[in-house]
């Protein structure tokens, strides 16, 4: 047996030696010099200590034994209070005398107060890799001989670390899995406000992972970084030195092995590092800016290293995937870079194509965009409405959006397109809850929203269903992008964000209605949290007030989803099931107020918000005409309809003859919008629905209301399922004529529909949806509110409304919506001007249930 490290009877005690070594390290740490050199020196001093302990311990056996440093100690990166990771390796069976050696080795270490992570093996046990022990697999990659039988260590090296070792691939797999699991606990982002200098993504463990992966996958090259990472060896060393120095200060301050760089520690570290800045806050920001700079580089190199562990089994052919775009093994890139460099407005398509292809943008191309981005102003990225439409399409919540936006942020493109976003670059806001920088928090909100769009996901399905119903979900993403840009200053950040979003919305040429929506969402992005978590969720007034704030179901859904995504992006633990439940309940209560309780709030002639509508009226419409038209309509009408449409409706309803029907048809993509004005009479709603059904229209949404002048206004959105209007130039007038004839009684609609009803029954093949007829007595004082849910069958609305009319009920207000194959219709009813009696409700329910299963 050989002993590498001889002992000397005159030397100081182990405790004194350790104290001296620690004192030296403490002094260096205090001066922010506790980097790689000091760690190595401290490790060497620990080696000497262990040599002395080993010399005293091994006199009791003839079995070959080797003391091996593994893990961080193996890498010579011991910090003040690091664990001492050891492998005690025996060349023969481990019996009583070997156990005595183990005790003789460990007890002095424990007596010194050291935390020891020890593994004990005999060489023959290492013939097979320990696949169920990933930490051990990765720790031994850093094995370093300390003392004992050198030939035993050689045997170990041959078995475990040689290029052809059976341990190699399981170690790569284990390391990849450990990295993934660890990153997951940090929400997979480097932008931690209080990062753990050892464990956080982009920090020390990742550096070690890079070096280990490079060694395991490219043993011949002798490189410290993967080939694809480029010339980043020096950057890796710099980052490591920075992190090690911070870690030594943290150990010094904490007096234990704690590596969290808390806000308080940031102040101390910034001071010791002499970070630039005239005050504490700016010094800390400067420190964290350097931290994120290093972490970003580490993340980029690690990503390349991980990619190299997954070599493609088949050759990926380079193929064209769009104008001047190609897809290769490392992602989407430009074909002609000179051409691309001259057309910055085409760069967005690069990222859009990567989303469509389900891959990243090629690293070289990201670097290309970074190099050339400085040449262009924000206006030059959005020349016209084509670029606007492309950008809005790009913002559709979907898989890959977060990844591509992060790439655009990392290479500076996002900040060049929107300098307002650059204001929150690595912005640190200190509070008890937020875990990430403002820019990363913002991108995470978009990731959270995109996750809801994943059809494979079963999480948060109730919220996912809201997202699927939205007409313009990209507006939530647009609002999320800018909801916190106001945090660059310490003012009211919501209002500041609204002020700052004006420029981007103008440059993008967003429509006025969408601008109002985005500004609303940003201005009120904290309101739903306040109402859900800080108000009494059982007080109906809370939902009523919130309903007034949001105004429409569409905005309610958007604000709800934005709030959910925002809370979830604060930290991994902030969105608890408890909070989710409170948020959902406020959503449901508010939704019910908007759809069941809106009838009691009607427009009064003198209310102040009509002044603007009157002031901007076209010359041919008088103030009185507007007043007369609006009086008696539900307040909801003003929230749903823009002033231009109100003027159209005023025109439509002027001087109506008793039996006259006027309609206005408009088309947006595949959806038609129909406005009908006529004098109120029995069955009018039923007849309109019947006529639309006769022409094969699939009604998506609709509402019916009447004003004090007895004018009925019915609004429908429908799909021309049989392409009647699309294929007939005179389709619109044919529809008007039939409607007129049905209203005046010249045509018998019931007999016309009979033939079609029979045909539609034969076509039914969809799974049955449970029907429900519910009378609500909670939300309205004026009306009996009838809620009907059932299969979205052909002619359903006509059948329902016919039954209601046959019971002598007046349909005062209607809301129609569809949810997949399910129709949800809400009718506000009266009979002879009063609510229905319980008996009337029961009779109506019986007949409706019968009609629904016909």
């Amino acid at each position, binding site marked *: 047996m050989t002993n590498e490290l001889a002992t000397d009877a005159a030397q100081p005690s182990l405790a004194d030696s350790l104290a001296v070594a620690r004192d030296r390290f403490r002094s260096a740490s205090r001066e922010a010099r506790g980097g790689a050199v000091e760690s190595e020196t401290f490790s060497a001093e620990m080696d000497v200590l262990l040599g002395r302990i080993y010399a005293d311990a091994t006199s009791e056996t003839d079995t070959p034994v080797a003391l091996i440093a593994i893990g961080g100690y193996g890498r010579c990166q011991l910090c003040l209070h690091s664990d001492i990771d050891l492998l005690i390796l025996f060349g023969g069976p481990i019996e009583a005398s070997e156990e005595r050696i183990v005790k003789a080795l460990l007890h002095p270490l424990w007596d010194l107060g050291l935390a020891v992570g020890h593994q004990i093996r005999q060489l023959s046990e290492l013939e097979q890799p320990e696949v169920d022990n990933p930490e051990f697999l990765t720790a031994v990659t850093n094995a370093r001989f300390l003392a004992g039988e050198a030939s035993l260590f050689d045997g170990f090296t041959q078995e475990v670390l040689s290029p052809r070792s059976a341990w190699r691939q399981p170690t790569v797999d284990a390391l990849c899995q450990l990295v993934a699991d660890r990153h997951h606990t940090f929400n997979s982002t480097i932008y931690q406000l209080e990062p753990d200098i050892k464990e956080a993504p982009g920090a020390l463990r990742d550096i070690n992972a890079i070096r280990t992966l490079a060694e395991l996958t490219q043993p011949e090259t002798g490189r410290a970084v993967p080939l694809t990472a480029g010339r980043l060896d020096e950057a890796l060393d710099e980052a490591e030195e920075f992190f090690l120095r911070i870690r030594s200060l943290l150990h010094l301050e904490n007096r234990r092995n704690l590596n969290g760089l808390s806000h308080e520690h940031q102040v101390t570290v910034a001071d010791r590092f002499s970070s630039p800045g005239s005050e504490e806050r700016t010094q800390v920001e400067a420190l964290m800016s350097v931290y994120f700079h290093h972490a970003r580089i580490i993340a980029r190199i690690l990503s390349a290293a991980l990619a190299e562990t997954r070599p493609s089994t088949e050759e990926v052919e380079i193929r064209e995937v769009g104008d001047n775009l190609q897809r290769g093994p490392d992602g989407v890139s430009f074909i002609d870079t000179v051409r691309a460099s001259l057309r910055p407005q085409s760069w967005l398509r690069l990222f859009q194509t990567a989303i469509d292809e389900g891959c990243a943008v090629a690293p070289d191309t990201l670097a290309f965009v970074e190099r050339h981005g400085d040449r262009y102003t924000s206006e030059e990225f959005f020349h016209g409405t084509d670029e606007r439409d492309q950008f809005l399409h790009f913002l559709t919540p979907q898989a890959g959006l977060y990844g591509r936006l992060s790439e655009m942020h990392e290479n500076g493109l996002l900040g060049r397109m929107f300098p307002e976003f650059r204001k929150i670059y690595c912005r640190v806001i200190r509070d008890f809850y937020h875990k990430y920088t403002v820019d990363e928090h913002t991108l995470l909100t978009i990731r959270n929203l995109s996750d809801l769009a994943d059809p494979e996901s079963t999480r948060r399905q109730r919220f996912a269903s809201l997202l699927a119903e939205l007409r313009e979900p990209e507006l939530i993403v647009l609002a999320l992008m800018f909801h916190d840009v106001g945090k660059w200053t310490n003012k009211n950040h919501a209002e500041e964000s609204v002020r700052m979003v004006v420029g981007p919305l103008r440059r993008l040429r967003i429509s006025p209605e969408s601008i109002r929506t985005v500004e609303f969402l940003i201005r009120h992005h904290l309101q739903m949290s306040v109402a859900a978590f800080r108000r009494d969720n059982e007080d109906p007034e809370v939902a009523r007030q919130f309903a007034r704030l949001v105004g429409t179901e569409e905005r309610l859904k958007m604000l709800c989803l934005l709030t959910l995504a925002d809370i979830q992006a604060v930290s991994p633990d902030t969105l*608890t099931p408890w909070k989710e439940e409170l948020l959902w309940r406020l959503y449901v209560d508010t*939704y*019910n107020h908007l759809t069941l309780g809106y009838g009691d709030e009607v427009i009064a002639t003198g209310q102040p918000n009509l002044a603007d509508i009157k002031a901007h009226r076209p010359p041919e419409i008088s103030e009185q005409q507007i007043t007369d038209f609006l009086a008696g309509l539900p307040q909801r009408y003003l929230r749903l309809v823009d002033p231009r449409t109100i003027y159209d409706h005023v025109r439509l309803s002027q001087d109506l003859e008793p039996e006259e029907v006027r309609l206005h048809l408009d088309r947006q993509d595949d959806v038609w919008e129909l406005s009908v004005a006529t004098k109120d009479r029995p069955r009018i709603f039923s007849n309109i629905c019947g006529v639309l059904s006769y022409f094969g229209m699939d009604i998506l949404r609709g509402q019916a209301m009447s004003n004090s002048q007895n004018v009925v206004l019915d609004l429908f959105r429908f799909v021309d399922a049989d392409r009647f209007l699309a294929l007939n130039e005179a389709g619109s007038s044919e529809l008007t004529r039939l409607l007129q004839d049905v209203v005046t009684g010249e045509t018998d609609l019931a007999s016309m529909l009979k033939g079609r009803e029979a045909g539609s029954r034969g076509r039914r093949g969809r799974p049955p949806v449970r029907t429900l007829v*519910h009378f609500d007595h909670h939300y309205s004082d004026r009306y009996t509110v009838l*809620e009907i*849910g059932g299969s979205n069958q052909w002619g359903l609305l006509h059948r329902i409304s016919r039954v209601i009319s046959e019971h002598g009920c007046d349909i005062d207000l209607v809301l129609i919506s569809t949810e997949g194959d399910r129709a949800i219709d809400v009718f506000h009813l009266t009979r002879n001007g009063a609510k229905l009696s319980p008996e009337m409700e029961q009779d109506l329910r019986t007949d409706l249930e019968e009609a629904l299963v016909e």
Partner: protein
Amino acid sequence: MKLVKAIVRPNKVDAVKEALASCSAAGMTVSEVRGHGRQRGHSAMYRGREYEVSLLPKMRIETVVPDDMVEDVIEAISEAARTGEIGDGRVFVLPVEESRNIRTGERDVV
């Protein structure tokens, strides 16, 4: 020493915290919980579907106080959390055998 455990409406937590601070309660633990008392929840409708709301979101506030403070603390919590409506919550008082400060090892200090 007694453990005072209060179940209150979520929006009343801040008021209860302030009330406890004003009567010098040393510390507290706040948790998000769900449950029901005599309210037993209710059914609600959403888009023509009925669903049960059986477990209502509440907050649990726990504090350990000396015996002679118990009544004051109960009074402070009740005053702060009361709306007069069903669902205001409950206050429970449990005996505490012993407490130790983990860092210093001190006994029975609250």
